[in-house]
């Protein structure tokens, strides 16, 4: 197992480096001179070249890339162009908010997809299955910003049960924190739930068709036992890996959800940075997102191999 993990890690590193290269190149491709963006239009040529030198912009590109990369490895992502605070600190402040939102969303997603997927697979081809399939497809097709707006209209405006926006930290007031995160988490979780429901349905259906399940039935095991003791465990493995891989989609969805519900998270940081052309922040956010998704995929891969020995030996 350790050898497998090591081999995987070694083969994953080049890909990770390419990720960093893409992020670096993306911002370098931005039109316009960063020095001028910072100092404004009236800056003197001396001031501009001074700034360029201090920012290291006059050095050859490979050198810039390496110094950017080594700083990032030390979690130094530069300074925000808008408020001159450390990008690393901004990210450290906002990321936990998004993580909490994402975890809450993943919980909701599990609560929906596990029963829905199981029922769909067990009652395959009945009207229940067809209804759940249509609901799942609808969940995938519904834009999360539309769902968010609908939820706000229903629960905040018409019913006035939950305030439409705002955020209180978990430390300050756990009750209010969870209340304010409820609608955003549902908004974010529904899409994920829909995808996972379909996944579990197909994975469990396939498992239920296997010979060993037929044997279990033949042995006289009650249907419920067959499902829970044998089929579900095997079907859950690919399901859990799919679950882990939802993180990328959740981060993207969080960007929009945080806009709608005014949550001061990671996603909001990105959108604000895009509008103010705050390049260091954009770079930092995209890099951290990519590394996070990459790490999670890697861990999910390892987890899958740990549970299913066949993977380790190709």
């Amino acid at each position, binding site marked *: 197992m350790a050898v497998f993990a090591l081999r995987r890690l070694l083969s994953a590193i080049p890909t990770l480096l390419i990720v960093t290269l893409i992020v670096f190149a993306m911002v370098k491709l931005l039109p316009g001179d960063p020095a001028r963006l910072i100092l404004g239009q009236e800056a003197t040529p001396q001031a501009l070249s001074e700034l360029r030198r201090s920012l290291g912009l006059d050095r050859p590109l490979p050198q810039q890339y390496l110094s950017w990369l080594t700083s990032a490895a030390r979690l130094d992502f530069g300074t925000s162009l808008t408020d001159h605070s450390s990008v690393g600190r901004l990210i450290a402040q906002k990321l936990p908010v998004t993580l909490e939102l994402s975890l809450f969303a993943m919980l909701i997603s599990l609560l929906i997809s596990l029963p829905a997927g199981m029922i769909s697979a067990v009652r395959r081809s009945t009207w229940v299955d067809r209804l759940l399939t249509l609901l799942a497809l609808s969940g995938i097709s519904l*834009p999360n910003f539309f769902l968010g707006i609908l939820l706000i209209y229903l629960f905040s405006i018409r019913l006035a049960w939950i305030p439409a926006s705002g955020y209180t930290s978990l430390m300050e007031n756990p009750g209010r924190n969870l209340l304010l995160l409820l609608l955003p988490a549902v908004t974010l979780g529904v899409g994920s739930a829909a995808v996972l429901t379909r996944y579990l349905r197909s994975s469990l259906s396939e498992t239920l068709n296997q010979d060993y399940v037929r044997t279990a039935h033949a042995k006289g095991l009650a249907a419920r036992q067959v499902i829970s003791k044998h089929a579900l465990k095997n079907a859950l493995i690919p399901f859990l890996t799919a679950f882990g891989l939802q993180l*990328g989609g959740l981060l993207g969805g969080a*960007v929009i959800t945080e806009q709608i519900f005014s949550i001061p998270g990671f996603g909001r940081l990105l959108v604000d940075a895009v509008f103010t052309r705050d390049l260091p922040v954009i770079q930092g956010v995209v890099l951290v997102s990519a590394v996070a998704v990459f790490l999670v995929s890697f861990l999910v891969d390892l987890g899958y191999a740990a549970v299913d020995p066949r993977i380790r030996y190709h």
Partner: protein
Amino acid sequence: MTTTLSKPPSAAKRRLPAPVRRFLGNKLAVIGIVVLVIFAGAALLARQVAPFDPAQIFFADLRAAPSAAHFFGADELGRDIFSRVVYGARVSLSAGLISVTLALVFGGSIGLIAGYIGGWLDDVLMRFVDALLSLPFLVLAIALAAILGPSLQNTMIAIAIVTAPAFARITRGEVLSQRERDYVQAAQALGAGDGRLIVRHLLPNISGALIVQTSLAIANAILAEASLSFLGLGIQPPTPSWGSMLNAARGYLTDAPWMAVFPGLAIFLAVLAFNLIGDGLREALDPRSHKS
């Protein structure tokens, strides 16, 4: 002696190929096609279908509720929402189709080359593809939109870049699985060159998976364009886009909820249609899939 009477070929009933019959038998898929035709019709015949110009302002009808005069009501500037939704179909459908076509061509080519040639080229290309796949779809699209600037064209490019890696992976997978098949080896033994092999033999056999992926990718692309416009990074006003209409509607939810409902429904139905079609295609083309 018995003679078997067989119908002469001209009178023999010509049946549709099995996948087509399977697809048409799938009620949900057919619904998807119907909805798609409606939206396509709206997009192509916008000028005929829409009662008003999408930019026309009716000062007396600010935020008017749906009525006979304005089927979907009017927005905060007094513009007819129905007309704007109809014209918005152009933006969404063209963004979806063009960006996915670009992704299919570029991503598919890369996958084809990687899968066919193999070796170190395959390795390098796929690492690049994997790297792109690591970047969260919307995060990357937003960053690209920021870099390229907000416009319909740049939105399409950004979505194409984000969608291409999936096509590369699928094409490569299909090529790898077909490459070892008997018919390929037979064709090679008969002296078929690479070009002929790819065009006449490989492509027809991998097209099934690609068609399914195309439909699903268009669904995602429409959603992505709407998301980018919602955030203000896509089509700029006054061109109507369902996403930006939804964004504008946020401020008026209390007194004019119809401003949000209709564009939102439009996005939902368009995306659902492509998802239903993609699902139907997958079931129709894959004989191994479990039939419901």
